[in-house]
């Protein structure tokens, strides 16, 4: 499954590179995201996964290379412009608007999809009233989707950890993304919550909502359970790519995670 630059690709990153001074965080990585799939990006700590994410979402400007979203070059565009073009994201360490209520958080996510401006907000024209009411209704729907409808007016910081993660997803969905980036979505969840989340991503987001999902994930059960394709980064380079099964058996991946000795160990076991 190595589909480069075919028509079904939502996002194409070509030779993307990021240097921080002398440190090469991401080294000429080419990467495609086909439409309607769940892609996982894995790799040991410090492999450059989050940096790669931050380049896709416009937080960092790549040192070299290009990123194409839906056929449009978005390299170096600011985050809000990229969000407007269809990438929604969550953060590794939850970054909700802590003191805003759940519904307000979701409504902030709709910013780019709303049109009210300073002047008609002051006058509160019928258009603004309608838009505001529609946004509120849609926000409640989204909260319903992630199972937080009853906590709509609770401040984000008062929600338990797992629910904060869900709220972040609802907020990202509110931006009406084509591609959803999840940065370690199950970090800090217990096994049952992780399993539920896997189900939510695979069944609800991919199969029902027809969304494309790209996620960074450490929990192998989640990765293997839901991914259509797994890409592995190590020291800023893509070392493997393929179906979960293929990646699991890949020597370089095992080496990256467990060291050279483990590979030899496995070979020996495989021989015997």
């Amino acid at each position, binding site marked *: 499954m190595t589909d480069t630059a075919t028509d079904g690709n939502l996002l194409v990153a070509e030779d993307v590179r990021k240097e921080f001074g002398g440190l090469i965080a991401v080294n000429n990585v080419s990467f495609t995201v086909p439409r309607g799939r769940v892609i996982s990006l894995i790799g040991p700590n410090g492999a450059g996964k989050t940096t790669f994410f*931050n380049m896709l979402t*416009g937080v960092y400007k790549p040192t070299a290379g290009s990123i194409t979203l839906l056929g449009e070059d978005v390299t170096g565009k600011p985050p809000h412009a990229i*969000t407007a073009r269809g990438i929604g994201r969550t953060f590794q360490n939850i970054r909700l608007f802590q003191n805003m209520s759940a519904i307000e958080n979701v*409504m902030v996510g709709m910013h780019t999809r709303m049109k*009210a401006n300073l002047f008609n907000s*002051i006058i509160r024209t019928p258009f603004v009233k309608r838009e505001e009411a529609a946004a509120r209704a849609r926000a409640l729907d989204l909260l319903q989707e992630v199972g937080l409808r009853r906590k709509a007016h609770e*401040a984000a*910081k008062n929600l338990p950890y797992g629910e904060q993660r869900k709220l972040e997803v609802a*907020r990202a969905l509110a931006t009406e993304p084509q591609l959803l980036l999840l940065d370690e979505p199950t970090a800090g969840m217990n096994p049952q919550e992780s399993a539920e989340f896997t189900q939510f991503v695979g069944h609800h987001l991919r199969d029902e909502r027809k969304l494309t999902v790209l996620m960074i994930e450490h929990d192998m059960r989640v990765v293997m359970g839901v991914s259509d394709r797994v890409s592995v980064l190590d020291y800023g380079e893509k070392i493997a790519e393929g179906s979960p099964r293929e990646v699991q058996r890949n020597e370089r991946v095992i080496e990256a995670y467990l060291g050279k000795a483990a590979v030899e160990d496995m070979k020996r076991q495989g021989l015997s």
Partner: protein
Amino acid sequence: MGHTAEPVDLQGRLSARWHELPELQRTGVVIALELVLAGLLLFIDKALGFGVGAVVAVYWIYRLPPVPWRLAAQAVLVALFLALGPRSFGILLAAAFAVFWIPERRRSLVVPAVAIGAAIFYPFYQGHMFTIPVFGSWPDVATGVVMLVFVMMAIGLNIVVGYAGLLDLGYVAFYATGAYTAAFFTSQQFAGQKCPTPGVSVTNCTVAVVPRHKFDFGAIGLTPGTGGIHISVWLLLLLSGVITAVFGIVIGLPTLRLRGDYLAIVTLGFGEILPQIARNGDNLFGTGVNLTNGPNGITPLDSIGFGNRLSDATGGVLPSNFLTCCKASHFGHQIQSTDIFFWVAIVLLLITVFCSLRLQYSRLGRAWIAIREDETAAAAMGIPLMRTKTWAYASGAFFGGVAGAYYAVFRSATFPGDFFFNISVFILCMVILGGMGNIWGVIIGAAFLAYLNQEGLANTGSWLNTNLSANSFNLLVAGIFLALLLWLLVRAREQMMRYVLVGLIVVDLVLFVGLRIIHLPIDVPLYASGIYGLIILIVMLLRPEGLIPSRRRAAELHEGVHDEPLYDAVHAGAEA
């Protein structure tokens, strides 16, 4: 002194003993003590004694069961004041009690309505009000105008600082822009000179020189032969707002890319640059262009009014010119031009409050708060940071500009000396004191500080000088005060009450010592900056969220905002 298990410290033991007493006895003792305290104060100043007595009475009345006891007690108290005076206090008390009997969900409508009504009729009853202890008479209407203007500015700054979380230390720049815009368009500043005889230069002119340029667009009360730009002041208010907003955008575009402290420093710079331009603008870059008339300022400015046609059409209800208006007398009060300025200021303020509230609960308002809470997340959710911050800056600037223009027109003058850095800080203090992000808190904070600045401190000073002396505050009085306050401190359970009592004890000691060192009279307004600083210090220590905080802001101040900079490349690179 045996080694027993009971609390060893004096306060603990007294407190324990005290709480063993029956409730009724305790209450009785406390009321008696408080009345003695009020009685003692009578010796220093009658109004103060009665004032404290009234506060004590109101406090205990609210401890009574509501009907019939509380109602009856309130009626008695009001009747007492109505009969024995000051009557205005009785009426005020009755109004306050009445408001609290309104069910809570209706109060949010009734209270603003009553407040607006009370403000509109203020010029009529201001002269009949009782003397406030220490602060003296109620602020006069001219002070009221200044207070309203400053409240407007504080609301404008609140949009920038309170909503969007952009610390602006140069807000005075917007105030100055508004004021100078007003001055440019309603004065003879750009009249120029020419000689009436054709072909003769100004220096060789044998007859009186006349203005060269004149532009008139609906100005009021111009004497024939004046030159310069004169446009209707109503139009001007809008124009100054717009020009200041544009100016805000121009300042904002390069500066708003900065975060936190860096932004504060740059705005501080702009707040210093503008007054300097005003001060030195009588000869711009040595070209001889006189833009701002330098340190002399620009004066006089045109008057404000509705013009003859509107005035005649409404039978004189709308005055044609504020400065020459007003012969009518209502409710025994002859309308002054200041009153008209006051009412117009109320209208401007209401518009400001309306806009500010509408913005707060809009798409843009949510975006501002999101940026304040977490810039990175806000950007990732599709909020264009620069544009959104610039809108906050522009709206804040707009109201600052309108307020500045109105103030300039009210005083009919603009001087560069009005726009020092301390005004920026002063307005920021108003926002902090009231409670950042909460418009009602900001209104109260701004009104109070503006009042102190205009009248309050001077009044307090003269009260201190007349009523306090080493004689009136001798060892006996100070000692009894101290004993009483300490006793109350022992029984005080609420933290706030304790703070108040500790404060009073300090005041008591400072006064006793101070009056023996310092020789009266003291010029209190001289210490203004120190006093404001002290007020802000106390607020920051005891109530960092301000007097009436916004729910959200309070939470942020107590827990700290979650905003790790994701742009910090080295950090993020290392962790990724």
